[in-house]
């Protein structure tokens, strides 16, 4: 691994581990909130950024994860059983959502995922016997660890950090394996990919399923973080925000969700607290998103590539100019000798 990469990892680890010690309760809470969304949008980045699918219903899986854990807790079942249950349920539902993706393309797939999100949201809202309807579920407990209480915000932050890092490493491993190239092939040219033996059917289904699992686990963590859930954070608007986070961060870049979730979750809060901003934090946020998109359409993490491309282009045109000058000089020289 490059030295610069190692140093960056070391610094990030240091910051993530020590920063909360300097923050007040709300700051720690916000940081945890950000981590949860990093995890959720990592899943979406796989589906949309790496595999090139359209998914505007990701928040539904977030909600399925949250409600699964919450409902099971209410029934006296441990969080540690609720978590894998949420993961499995999301995997299965994600697979099912992948099937329309096989038959329906681009924008119509986006609509289908919107429809799916809507259906799940309606279920959450109306099935009071199961989900508490609009009243939601409250008093959601934190997971129990032997000897350690996660009730404090700081302790829970470290727990969520651990889970997020672990799952990120797993995803990293997956993307570095041949699966990573298969997903990219699926994204860039599915017809060609199929003619080379890439099973685009299976990879499409799995891109939805795995993405869903990440959102589901994030949802479980979310439920215990906020300790009260109701259908609103899992509606279409939330899916659209998650999509925004992936695109702003940089689809197909592994750390895109880290930046994207920061922009989507942390940035508005910072802006709200900035002096003089007050009610203008939302319109400024919206404007910032527009400017970001026009300036960096491939996302924030595309900046280094862009700079590199521009340097290469400049070097290439400089080389051409030089070559032209040399040729002109040589021709002149030849003309002179010829004329003598």
């Amino acid at each position, binding site marked *: 691994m490059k030295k610069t990469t190692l140093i960056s990892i070391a610094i990030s680890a240091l910051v993530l581990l020590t920063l909360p010690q300097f923050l007040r309760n709300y700051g720690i809470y916000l940081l945890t909130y950000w981590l949860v969304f990093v995890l959720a949008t990592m899943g979406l980045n796989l589906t949309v950024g790496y595999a090139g699918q359209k998914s505007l219903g990701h928040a539904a899986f977030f909600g399925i994860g949250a409600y699964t854990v919450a409902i099971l807790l209410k029934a006296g079942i441990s969080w540690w059983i609720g978590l894998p249950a949420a993961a499995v349920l999301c995997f299965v539902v994600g697979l099912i959502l992948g099937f329309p993706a096989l038959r329906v393309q681009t924008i119509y797939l986006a609509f289908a995922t919107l429809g799916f999100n809507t259906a799940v949201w309606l279920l959450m809202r109306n099935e009071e016997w199961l989900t508490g309807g609009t009243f939601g579920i409250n008093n959601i407990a934190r997971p129990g660890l032997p000897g350690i209480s996660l009730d404090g915000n700081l302790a829970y932050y470290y727990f969520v950090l651990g889970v997020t890092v672990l799952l990120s490493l797993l995803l990293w491993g997956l993307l570095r394996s041949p699966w990573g*190239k298969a997903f990219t092939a699926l994204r860039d040219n599915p017809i060609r990919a199929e003619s080379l033996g890439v099973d685009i059917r299976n990879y499409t289904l799995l891109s939805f399923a795995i993405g869903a699992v990440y959102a589901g686990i994030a949802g479980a963590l979310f439920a215990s973080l906020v300790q009260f859930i109701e259908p609103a954070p899992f509606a279409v608007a939330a899916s659209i925000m998650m999509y925004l986070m992936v695109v702003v961060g940089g689809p197909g870049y592994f750390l895109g969700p880290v930046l994207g979730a920061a922009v989507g979750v942390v940035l508005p809060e910072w802006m709200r607290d900035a002096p003089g901003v007050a009610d203008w934090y939302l319109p400024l946020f919206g404007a910032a998103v527009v400017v970001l998109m026009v300036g960096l359409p491939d996302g924030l993490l595309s900046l280094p590539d862009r700079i590199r491309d521009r340097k290469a282009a400049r070097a290439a045109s400089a080389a051409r100019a030089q070559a032209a000058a040399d040729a002109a000089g040589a021709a002149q020289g030849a003309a002179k000798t010829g004329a003598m």
Partner: protein
Amino acid sequence: MAQSLLKVSGLKKAYGAIQAVGGVSFEVMPGEIFGVIGPNGSGKTTLFNSMLGQITPDEGKIELNGEDVTQLGPLELNRRGVGRTFQTLQVFGKMSVRDNLIVAAQEHSGTMLSRIFAPGDSNLGAKADALIDRFRIRHVAHKKAGELSYGQQKLVDIAMAFMSEPDLVLLDEPCAGVNPSLVGGISTLLKDLNHNPQFEKRSSFVVIEHNMDFVMDLCHRIMVMVEGQVMAIGTPAEIRANKQVLDAYLGN
């Protein structure tokens, strides 16, 4: 009689009232380079797409090594050793050239599950490098495929088709849009891959092309299609001497 690698019998495909392919039969023997020529609209591309599982023929049979593969799709055909290039360039623009070659063969080893634990290049790095050297694109191998010139991308395209060591490669107008100076190079490459393989297998080709010199020079046998029917099948010399073909296509 040696078994044919590919046997097409009575293939028919109509689009509404238009009979694009109206009863085509031919055989390709192992190790052969088989050319398909004919005017535009003669049904060559429809024939190809049927052979590649992209469309299902109305009638007729396609056999690969004796197995009936008429109903199979592109994925199954590829798994059975059929590769192809496309008429319009189809490389993965955002991946490096080397990665393009790796992904072209990686799905042929192991199962999806086992591939999660395989190394990133599926141990295909050496093979990819060998093909890169053979195709003389070492100097651009590290670049993203989308950044290459058209001719270079064409070479990558062809190389990709060969990575999985297919028995049969279908080449759809490999010279289309390519600088004339490069055509000779492609011809040499293909002959090399056919006669003198680096890998143990000798690949057979079916080539659609309009560049007559290229086809006559490269192919062992040529089939002439006109209006969805086979007009003639023979060696280049036989085709060149065939009066019917000359009148209809090669032009008087």
